[in-house]
Structure formats: structure tokens, C-alpha cells
């Protein structure tokens, strides 16, 4: 750890639609160190997937448009690369695994073809070598009879198996960065655990960095080193994972924590949903985007959108009233968080 692998600065992505311009990502800034696992958390429409698709330059343009920003990968701005140069990075140095394994694999090509094509392209392997490597990859993600299954089609695999194939495909060229876009959301809970275990193990074996997108804080609690919480295209809080769970300092993060069940607490507590809806991304408010749903709101929040402010060690929050959050969050959730004195 230590070296910065990915440095995203002030990234903005928009989509032109019939109803107006949708502001999907609104000035996102964060970085990722080598070997680090970053969780990207938020509800649907929070811009977490779009921001990563922008990093991969997989946004369909038009209607999409990258309005501003830099994406420095190993010091090189990906947004300034030509299509061909970018293509050589995709699937090679940065790989991406998608949410729905049922639709993300091509139904008319065998698994073998779909894994080997990246190997042949990026690593210049010949057919035999690529096939051997593909079988190794399948073994790595615990697929039995790997060699035989290379000739099978996606529909012959179960959902969990397909997601393993997707991960094997993502890892095929040993990328420095793996972006996983809700890879477990479409799967059963037991399978989810298997997949996260596999990723955790492979991360240690291969020493890559991971950005894991999810709407479920519970999934990445044991996986991520650090978490970015996103809301309507902004990062609203970022902190190391333990710190975030113990000491959330944004009302939205508090709300998220309130809506996941915890097994380590003595009594069964009430889950509290966050009421209300996120703002319309076409007409974003000038103030804080969370204003409508926030218990801490004041006139200031309506006037000015809070920037990310340093609130602790490696801990930033975009809330004018993070002190108030710290004091009142226990009462809100009926749960004990870290005491202010300890922070």
C-alpha cells in the first residue's frame, strides 16, 4: 500500500434525455491506493455505477457526456486517452464485473471463447495457451471440471456459477484494478457469501485493488478497507470501514446503517427506513441534495451545498451539522455508536 493507483478529480457525467439533462455524477473526487479495497455505497440513482462506467469510459455517448474531471490511473488521465489506447487498458489493467450474471454473458458464445478472447487480445496468447489459462482461471474461482466446462454455454450454468465465470473473465489478464458493480446483488445470500469469499481470497493472492459497488453496507463490511457513501451524484461521506460503521457523520450514512439488520447486537431492533425520495437529477437543488429527507436540516442547508469536510482521521463528511449528527444518532437509531469523547 501507499502508492496511489487511481485518482479521480471533480468528475461530472451527464445524460441528455427528452426531459432534460440528467446530472448523474456531480463532481466526484476520490483516490484509491494500490492493494486497497474501496466500497462505493449508495441507493440506485446515486451515481455509483455511472461514475465507475465513466472511469472505464463505457458510458454510451450520446446521450452521455463527461462534463468535467480527470481520471488519473497510474498518473495517466484516462479521459484524455484515444479510443484505441483506452481499449488496451480495459479488460487488461482495469477489469469490470457486472451486476446481472444472467444477462452479462453472451448467450451464443461458449464460456471458453468469452474468457480466451481477452487473453488472446491483451496478452497475445495463442489458442492453446489461452485455453489452458482459461481452465486455470475457472479452477481459481472454484468451478468443478473446469476444462470440460469451457465448451459450455452460459445458460448451462447457474447464476452463482455464471458470476464466478464473470469474475474469472475479469481476472484473466491480472488487472491492477477490478471494478465490481454489485456482483452479488442478483444472487442468493449463501452464494453471495461464496462470491465475496472468492474475491477476498483472490485479492490477497493477486494483490490487486478493488472498487466494490453496492447498495448494501452489510455486504462489504468485511471486505472493504474504506467506504465512499454516494448520494444523488455526490460523495457525501468517506471513511475507513471501521470508522464509518462506528462513527457515521452524515445523516444519510446514519440512515443507511439504520436500515441494515445486525446480528451482533443483543436484542432484535427495529429497522428504520429512510423516508422520502432522492431529488430529481434533472433539477438538482442548489443546496444540500439530502435536504428533503434530513432530520438535521436548517436554512443553511437550503442555501449552500456542503463540501466534503475533514471530520477525523481519513474521515470526511459533507454535512454542515456533523456535530449534531454525532450527538443525536444514538437516539435516532436506538443503538450505541462511538461516544463523542472517544472520537
Amino acid at each position: 500500500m501507499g502508492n496511489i493507483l487511481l485518482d479521480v478529480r471533480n468528475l461530472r457525467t451527464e445524460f441528455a434525455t427528452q426531459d432534460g439533462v440528467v446530472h448523474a455524477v456531480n463532481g466526484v473526487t476520490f483516490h484509491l491506493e494500490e492493494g486497497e479495497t474501496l466500497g462505493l455505497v449508495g441507493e440506485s440513482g446515486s451515481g455509483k455505477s455511472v461514475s465507475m462506467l465513466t472511469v472505464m469510459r463505457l458510458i454510451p455517448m450520446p446521450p452521455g457526456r463527461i462534463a468535467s474531471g480527470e481520471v488519473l490511473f497510474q498518473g495517466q488521465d484516462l479521459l484524455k486517452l484515444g479510443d484505441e489506447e483506452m481499449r488496451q487498458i480495459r479488460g487488461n489493467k482495469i477489469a469490470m464485473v457486472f451486476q446481472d450474471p444472467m444477462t452479462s454473458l453472451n448467450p451464443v458464445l461458449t464460456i471458453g471463447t468469452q474468457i480466451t478472447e481477452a487473453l488472446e487480445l491483451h496478452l497475445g496468447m495463442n489458442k492453446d495457451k489461452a485455453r489452458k489459462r482459461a481452465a486455470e482461471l475457472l479452477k481459481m474461482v472454484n468451478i468443478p471440471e473446469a476444462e470440460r466446462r469451457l465448451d459450455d454455454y452460459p445458460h448451462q450454468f447457474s447464476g452463482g456459477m455464471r458470476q464466478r465465470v464473470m469474475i474469472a473473465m475479469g481476472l484473466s489478464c491480472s488487472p491492477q484494478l477490478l471494478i465490481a458493480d454489485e456482483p452479488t446483488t442478483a444472487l442468493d445470500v449463501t452464494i453471495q457469501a461464496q462470491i465475496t469469499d472468492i474475491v477476498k481470497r483472490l485479492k490477497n493472492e493477486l494483490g490487486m485493488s478493488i472498487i466494490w459497488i453496492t447498495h448494501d453496507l452489510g455486504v462489504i463490511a468485511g471486505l472493504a478497507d474504506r467506504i465512499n457513501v454516494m448520494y444523488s451524484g455526490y460523495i457525501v461521506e468517506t471513511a475507513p470501514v471501521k470508522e464509518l460503521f462506528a462513527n457515521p457523520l452524515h445523516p444519510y450514512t446514519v440512515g443507511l446503517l439504520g436500515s441494515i439488520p445486525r446480528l451482533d447486537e443483543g436484542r432484535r431492533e427495529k429497522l428504520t427506513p429512510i423516508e422520502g425520495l432522492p431529488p430529481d437529477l434533472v433539477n438538482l437543488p442548489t443546496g444540500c441534495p439530502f435536504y428533503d429527507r434530513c432530520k438535521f436540516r436548517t436554512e443553511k442547508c437550503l442555501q449552500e451545498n456542503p463540501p466534503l469536510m475533514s471530520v477525523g482521521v481519513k474521515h470526511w463528511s459533507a454535512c454542515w451539522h456533523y456535530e449534531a449528527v454525532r450527538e443525536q444518532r444514538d437516539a435516532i437509531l436506538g443503538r450505541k455508536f462511538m461516544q463523542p469523547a472517544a472520537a
Partner: protein
Amino acid sequence: MTAYLVRRLLWLPVLLILISLVTFALGVYGPGDPVTVMMGLRANPKIIEQVRKEYGFDRPFLVQYFNYVTNAVQGNFGYSLVKYQGQPVGALIAKRLPVTIQLNFVSILWSLPLGIALGVLAALKRGTWIDFIIRGFVILGISLPIIGLMPVLNFAVARKHEIGPLTIGPFLPVGGWEGMFAPHIIMPAFLLGLGILAIFTRQTRAAMIEVMTSDYIRTAHAKGLKEWMVIVKHALRNAMIPLITLIGFVLAGLFAGSFIVEQFFSIPGAGALAYESLLSKDYYVILAFTLMAATIYVIINLLIDITYAFVDPRIRYK
């Protein structure tokens, strides 16, 4: 998959028997008593009786049907009664059919690949002026009635001829057939292919747009594949599958087009023959033509369904 194949193959003979039974019944008895129709109302009843015996019309229907089918299978479809009096129908059609097949082949050859290419282009350039123009052409191709377009284009390239009702022009047949490589095939093949071009462009565009927005295309892009590889290997393969079923429609369209185009340009093909026989009520020719066309059509449609199942692994492995 095997069960599906067996079911389809078992249904084929049943369908063919049904088709032949109905066409035979209608073809022979549809217009009224076949012998009276052949000889006219004022013919001598004695002679009618004789002809009736000679042709076997006095026997039970099923026997007649059985005889007809056994003969037909051996290539004996009876004799022309009107224009080509006495000539065996099988030989008549056999002589004319290659012309129609050549013409249809050339029509498909230029229009189908071009249609797919234009459809892909329109889908990739969706929303741009290229897409706009291609879609405009598609609407034209589908809407312009061939019976009007044909004379207009014909006259546009034809030169006036003093002697008689002959149209002479660089791309026009002159009432004969000089094979599929002669330039005279250009105009009829162009007209016949226009509908195929329009339909394939439209459907390819729709299929490609659907496929290009699918998750697995995003996966292919995420792998860093070259753009042409994504289009050809990943998108086109999937988009082609639903297009296979279109070939049946194309075929039906060609049957219809052949009547019109061959008749208009006096091309001595099977379509023109069928049309002549229809107008002159040459029943054995019509009957044979309908039976053959329906049989070919049914078998090709079966082949299409089987191909469809083979191309799509989701069906193949069921």
C-alpha cells in the same frame, strides 16, 4: 431439442397430405364438374361421359386423389388443357422453374446482404442523419407498390420503339431469358429485391439496437475488445438469430413478386406460367404449381425452424 425435431418432422407428412388433399379437392372440384369445365357446357353428353372415364373422374374421390399423388410423386402432374395443350405439366414447370429460381436468387443476393449491412449501419449511427436517410428508404421500399414502381422505372429507362409493344432498355428483359448473368436481369431483380432490402434493413436495425444495449455487449466492451469484434462476433451473431425467421416471409414475398414481375417483363418463368394458367383456367397447371410451391414453402420453413434451433444454443441444448 431432439423431441422438438421429431415432433416437427412427424408433423411434416401430415401437413403435406392435408395440403395436397385440400388443393386436389379444390383444384379439381372447386370450379364445378372438371370435365364440364374442360369441355364447356354445350359439349355432347356422350363425349363428356367418355372423357370422364378416360380421366378417371368416375371413380371415388379418394382413389382419384391417391392416383394423382402417386403420379405426382413420380413427376407426372397430368397435361395442360389450354395453352400448351397436351404438354405434360411436370415438364412445363420444370422448364420454367430454373428461370424463376435464378431471378429470385439474384434478387436475394444483392438485397439481403445489403439490407443487413444497412440495418447494422443505421443501428450503429442511430439518431444521426445516416440513420434518418436509411429509415426513409425503408419506408419507401415497404410502401411503394411494385405494380406502380415497375412501370415507372421501366419507362424511365426504356427507349421508345417504333415497331410494336416492345420495351427496349439497358436493364430490361426483352421477352426472353438470357440467364442470370445478362444485364437484362438488373431491372426485375432490382424490383424483386427492393422489398427484401427494406424488410431486412428494418429488422436488422431493430435487432441490432436491442442487442447493442444489452449487458453482454457492455461486458464485451469492458474486456477491451476492438469495436469491430464487438459488432461482428458479439452483436451481429445475436441479432441474426431472429432474422432467420424472416426468410419465410421473404420467400412468400418472392412468390408474389414473381407473378407480377415475370408477367410484366414477359420473362418465361414459372410465375408467368402460373399467371397465364390462372387466367386461362388451365387447372392441372395451377394445381401442380400450387402443390409444388406449398411443398417447397413448407419444407423451407421447416429447415428455417431447425436452423433457428441450431443457431441458438439455448434451444439446441434443451
